[in-house]
């Protein structure tokens, strides 16, 4: 098992653990593990979040690593934002999976954020 997975305590969903266990070390080392199927739909259903019909395409958009990030968000990141944790772990996740969202930003702002994103830290 890759060392980094030993340090992760928040990814405790049984289906995730099982899926991870089936990945050979060589696959992690070659960076191909994230391409293995781990449907977003299955993960969110386990969390009790309902998806809108037709959102199965998310399985093609988000990969295994994204699912792990999503689980970390619901278990950890969401607990240290503003407002109730359920506002983020439940409501925001449900919205994320139900709404085709466009982001409310002025293009100049978009450009500035993209600059930040590309800035080394």
């Amino acid at each position, binding site marked *: 098992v890759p060392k980094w997975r030993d340090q*992760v305590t928040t990814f405790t969903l049984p289906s995730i653990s099982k899926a991870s266990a089936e990945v050979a070390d060589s696959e992690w080392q070659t960076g191909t593990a994230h391409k293995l199927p781990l449907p977003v739909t299955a993960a969110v259903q386990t969390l009790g979040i309902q998806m809108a019909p037709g959102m199965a395409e998310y399985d093609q958009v988000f990969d295994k690593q994204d699912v792990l990030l999503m689980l970390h968000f619901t278990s950890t990141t969401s607990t*240290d934002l503003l407002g109730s944790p359920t506002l983020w772990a439940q409501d925001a996740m449900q919205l*994320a999976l139900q709404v085709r969202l466009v982001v*409310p930003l002025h293009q100049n*702002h978009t450009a*500035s*954020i993209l600059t930040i994103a590309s800035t080394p*830290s």
Partner: protein
Amino acid sequence: MHAVLALTARHLQEKLPSLSSPHYDYKVREAHHLQKSLSTFSPKFNTTIHEHQDAVLATSFLLFFHSCSVIPTTLPTCPCADPSFTFLRGIQSIVADGAHIAHSGRYSTLVEPRVPASVTLPRGCSSPAVHLMQRIYDLPLNSPYLKNIPIYTERVQTLAPHLSPLEQGEESEDLLLSVLRWQALCPHAFVDLINAHDHIALVILAHYYAAVKFIISRSPKKWWWLQKKPGRMVQVIADYVGPAWTGWMEWARGEDGVGEGKRWSGRGQMIVWAWGGLKVTSSMPPCE
């Protein structure tokens, strides 16, 4: 979803930096999802904002949290630029555009108007806000800053409650939301001064960041996404305005004891600040 994933990738880098590997580089993952979430901006948005206002607010807040957590290691072209500033003002404009929907939606607790914390009377009638206004009114008659005094005054007046001492039992999150609202409500005229690197506007902004820093310093294990930025922004502004403005920046930089238990000994008296003539009006209790 991309905003959720970008913020989480950022969180993992902050909390578990050893987790990244060449094959699982959360920095790359963060940039990928950030770009995806931002590139979905579309002119169609304006026609669907009300329909999806909760989702829009949630995404805007997530991107705000993210932008707060990003601390550039190199000075940007505009040394005082803070993308989170823009996000906050964007959230405010969304709320203003559909106040009824926003205030009845899932995120109403984050966007509803907050009553600023009451201003308590400092011993000696001294406060950072009073000192700031005193410096502004002491400007020489030929100062180029004089024409902007009304803008400075409005911003300092509204910031004053957040520069007051914190009372026991006050909820940190309420205080934080309240002071963030000050930034969200910055008028265009003030934003223009910031963008023009107006030194006094920057000093006022530094006082805002100092207030945020003081609030979050009471909860050092909370709000990982905001812990670093306020102090960094105060430093950036101080460096930018230079040593000639050291006196103006004294309180914001903590050289006057901010965050070190040396602030006013508030007694809960309500006062009304008035800036004309640089004096606190008689409607307040007398100074001790």
